[in-house]
């Protein structure tokens, strides 16, 4: 469990990034954190595994304080982190060895490491690229390797810090599918930080960050019913929600809390096509 209490963070330059944020993320949850550029969402992510330490307040992972030096490695093993730029997180020149980088740092015995690496590569569907050179892979494939590198450390929480921002639609869809599976099948807690509102559809919980504090916190259905507020802070709603709003405001149909193409289609078939 990740628990954040009254956290504020100010950069050395004096720029305040977060003010008095409190947040609890339960085991097995799939959480999406959204906010515009510069809202403080990436700063928040870096607090989760102690890359940054709060200026005030506490961040605890399974009861361990990230400010406690002795716990740093334990916390970073538990909280896997995937960053935005696929190129800047792969360390070695062979995929397999890169996935092993984390376990190597943890001192995992070689026999076990081999099993973990193979399993991690399989979980992200990259087992056939084990011997490839990372620079020959696409952006989406590189991000899958980065996720595998985290899985090989057997984390409980996976944080994706705008990990899909530099990918094409196919790469993005792959990553989303993989983390959904990991959440469902391996019960890994997933915290996805993103600007793409479509990615927040279908998660358990959406947290909206604005100007360094939590603006909204709720289910996707709750959050996306506040379209105007989201737009006012530089965000958006998924296109399906936009259509739903339009149909409702023009009195054409009320699709309730539908958020996907299928839901809207079902709804319209029922309400408008009266056979």
């Amino acid at each position, binding site marked *: 469990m990740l628990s954040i209490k009254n956290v504020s963070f100010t950069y050395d330059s004096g720029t305040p990034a977060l003010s008095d944020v409190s947040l609890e993320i339960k085991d097995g949850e799939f959480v999406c954190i959204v906010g515009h550029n510069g809202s403080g969402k990436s700063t928040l992510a870096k607090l989760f595994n102690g890359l940054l330490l709060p200026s005030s307040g506490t961040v605890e992972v399974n009861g361990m304080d990230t400010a406690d030096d002795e716990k740093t490695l334990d916390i*970073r093993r538990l909280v896997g982190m995937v960053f935005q730029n696929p190129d800047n997180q792969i*360390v070695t020149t062979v995929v397999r060895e890169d996935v092993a*980088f984390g376990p190597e740092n943890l001192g995992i015995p070689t026999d076990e490491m081999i099993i973990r690496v193979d399993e991690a590569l399989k979980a992200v569907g990259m087992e056939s690229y084990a011997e490839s050179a990372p620079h020959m892979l696409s952006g989406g494939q590189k991000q899958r390797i980065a996720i595998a590198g985290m899985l090989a450390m057997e984390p409980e929480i996976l944080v994706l810090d705008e990990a899909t921002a530099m990918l094409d639609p196919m790469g993005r869809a792959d990553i989303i599918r993989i983390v959904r599976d990991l959440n469902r099948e391996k019960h890994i807690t997933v915290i996805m930080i993103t600007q793409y509102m479509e990615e927040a559809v279908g998660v358990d919980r959406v947290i909206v960050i604005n100007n360094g504090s939590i603006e909204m916190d709720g289910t996707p259905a709750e959050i996306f019913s506040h379209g105007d507020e989201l737009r006012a802070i530089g965000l958006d709603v998924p296109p399906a929600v936009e259509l739903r709003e339009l149909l409702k405001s023009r009195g054409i149909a009320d699709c309730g809390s539908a958020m996907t193409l299928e839901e809207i289609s079902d709804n319209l078939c029922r309400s408008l096509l009266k056979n």
Partner: protein
Amino acid sequence: MFKDITLGQYFPVDSVAHRLDPRTKLVLLILYIVAVFIVKDIWVFGFIIAFMLFMTAMSKVPLNYVLKAIKPMKLLLPLMFLLNLFMIKSGHILFSWKFITVTTGGLRQALFIVLRLIALVTGASLLTLTTTPVSLTEGLERLLSPLKAVKFPVHELAMMMTIALRFIPTLLEEADKIMKAQLARGADLESGNIFKKAKAMIPILIPLFVNSFRRAEELALAMESRCYHGGEGRTRLKVLKFHMRDLWAVLIFAALIAVVVILQNTFPIDRYAADLILGLLGKKQ
């Protein structure tokens, strides 16, 4: 387009030479260098070259790939040969015209320097052709690990090499993109004298540096997130293990040194050859 660059010119086939432990290969290179440097008689170089060809055959790397290593020295080799030929004056005069004098000692020295350079470069290139940069780094790290006792940063050095190898293709690609972006803004990289050209590189070098620093920062964060904390307590995915073939290889190379020593002490053919040449030129010793 830079994606096709293969690093360290590794030649991917399966051979005994490829399967040798990288540590062994580094030791073999040292033994080979020793052999090359203790040769005192020119004719024994024939034996070294024969051995070189034998190693090439064992590595299954085509000979012309191995010989490619000499290509960058196509200016250096003749230069070294001529310098030694004309500058060193010892032994007997073979030829003299105005200020040019060629002596037996000069000829010997000139031949030695060229043959040694060729032998060394082809030997080293055979190592890189049969060993991936990664395992070379690994071999180096393990081989040097006793130096950790005297606080020599062996692990850090190896890590730096690995990261450099990893990022060279990425940076080349980036340099290409930056160059195009500035060309599109009308940057003129071709005309003008050398100073003008150097100045024209600024719009390319600055983004490249700035981006590299940002990359380094992000990479450091990613490595920290993956529990990197230096070499202490680290295990490895690939465990290097010595096999019988490693022992055999070392024995063969040790035998090479022994044979070189025995041959040149038993058959000092060079001296006879020198006499022969002098005799042919009609000069008395």
